[in-house]
């Protein structure tokens, strides 16, 4: 297996971008990444595109070919593959690109992720997101996507004493980080009261516990590590990649306060990298709901089970904390264009490891982690990155 590096990154603004179409977003991020890597179109061997539900959001399937076409890659008939695993689509696209380069099959691969969510109503968007859960045995019986995460939150508060305020602190921290990220959807700091007074979505979760609907795209360029210095001043190596599955329906998991897929994917990534949690300086985790970040920091092994809320409250996950979590603002504040999210996480980690994150830079960041989740934890993808 060859070692793989990230040599270029690109990301669009995230938000309600009414004047940007799906293809404009996807191409914007891709061109920026290719420009950053200083490669030409002829060098690209393959493309992977993370996308959850273009068919329902914009009534367009076959978006791999669409993005390849409008990126000018069909002149050379570059293979383009769409990758779908609900919220984990982007992270899984990155893993496909990683595997393609590691295997020796391809030398230069572009990994993109894109979603255009705001052409449909908020309720429609919410119902599309719910299709990541079990439609027949959860959603059609009334369980929304937020509702399923509310079941996790209720149980986590019951079993581990996690407080409503600690959940709010996740949003407060991520908005604070988002205020330092010029590409974030929300760049305004909030306090606990804003979260606790926002409308209930599914008790105990409120509007400010939930990531927004977003439009946006992100892309990275990969190549073998041995060639990386030709393209990048500071190459960043992908030192670990792990993926795991779990039951589609939340109720089929014995312990709903743990996302086992995250634990297993994380173990696999750490084993591949030969690193441990103590080595990680900065991590982007899948905070589609505040409770999800609490589970993530526990299941990734940064804190013991049940202590994620307390660790957040104590500032241990902030920019200056033990491990800086979601320096981009996370899904909550940077925004969550579903298929783009996993790739946007990689962009943020690479930015941090290059030392170019400006106001939100984690000092001497050397190792970073990205955790991307599909559904209520039926798919998890974890990547570890290290400055080469």
């Amino acid at each position: 297996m060859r070692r793989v590096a990230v040599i270029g990154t690109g990301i669009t603004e995230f938000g309600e971008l009414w004047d940007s179409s799906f293809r404009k977003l996807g191409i914007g991020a891709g061109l920026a990444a290719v420009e950053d890597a200083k490669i030409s179109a002829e060098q690209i061997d393959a493309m992977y595109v993370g996308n959850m539900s273009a068919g329902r959001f914009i009534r367009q399937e076959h978006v791999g070919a669409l993005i390849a076409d409008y990126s000018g890659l069909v002149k050379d008939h570059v293979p383009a593959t769409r990758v779908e695993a609900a919220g984990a689509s982007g992270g899984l696209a990155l893993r496909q690109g990683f595997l393609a380069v590691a295997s020796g099959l391809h030398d230069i691969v572009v990994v993109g992720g894109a979603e255009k969510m705001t052409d449909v109503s908020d309720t429609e968007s919410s119902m599309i997101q719910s299709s990541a859960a079990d439609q027949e045995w959860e959603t059609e019986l009334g369980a929304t996507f937020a509702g399923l995460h509310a079941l996790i939150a209720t149980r986590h508060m019951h079993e581990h004493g996690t407080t409503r305020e600690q959940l709010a602190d996740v949003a407060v921290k991520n908005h604070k980080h988002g205020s330092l990220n010029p590409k974030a959807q929300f760049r305004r700091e909030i306090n606990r009261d804003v979260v606790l007074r926002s409308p209930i979505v599914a008790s105990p979760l409120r509007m400010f516990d939930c990531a927004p609907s977003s439009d946006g795209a992100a892309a990275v360029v990969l190549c073998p590590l041995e060639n990386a210095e030709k393209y990048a001043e500071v190459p960043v190596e992908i030192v670990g990649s792990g993926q795991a599955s779990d039951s589609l329906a939340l109720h089929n998991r014995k312990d709903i306060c743990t996302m086992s897929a995250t634990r297993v994917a994380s173990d696999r990534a750490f084993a591949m990298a030969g690193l441990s949690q103590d080595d990680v300086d900065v991590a982007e985790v899948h905070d589609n709901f505040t409770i999800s970040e609490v589970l993530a920091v526990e299941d990734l092994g940064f804190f013991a089970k049940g202590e994620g809320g307390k660790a957040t409250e104590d500032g241990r996950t902030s920019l200056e904390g033990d491990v800086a979590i979601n320096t981009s603002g996370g899904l909550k504040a940077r925004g969550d264009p579903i298929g783009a999210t996993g790739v946007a996480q990689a962009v943020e980690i690479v930015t941090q490891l290059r030392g170019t994150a400006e106001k939100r830079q984690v000092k001497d960041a050397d190792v970073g982690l990205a955790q991307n989740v599909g559904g209520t934890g039926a798919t998890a993808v974890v990547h570890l990155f290290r400055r080469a």
Partner: protein
Amino acid sequence: MATAPRFWRENPSRYNLVGFKCNNCGNHYFPPRIICPLCRRKSVGKIEPVRLKGTGTIFSFTEVHEGMDEQNMQRPYIVAMVELDEGARITGQVIDCDARDLSIGTEVRATLRKLSEEGSSGVIHYGYKFIPLCNGPAASENE
């Protein structure tokens, strides 16, 4: 929008809580599957359809205010994950009660109710919902 056959296909389970018992490991599951997710090949030929009693306790719950099509579900409504007495867990609405009166561990029983209505066709879908046991003894509606 789901077509009618998609609902009818699942009717025995939706109406009568038909799950299965794996006679290899002894566990109960809902809904039916071809093989036991734990025993896999060893469960072939040992999957026994079982009508679950429909009684159990609330494992977790939430009151849903946003995010569901209004024509399907009148909001807010309560959704719970219920641990059935046989051990299988199931997700469904809890009705005839106030969220404030529920807690983890509250005993509930299943009942057959209208789940949703197709907007244009007017087709009504029925299925299980849950009622707290303290609301009275099991009624005959589920028989």
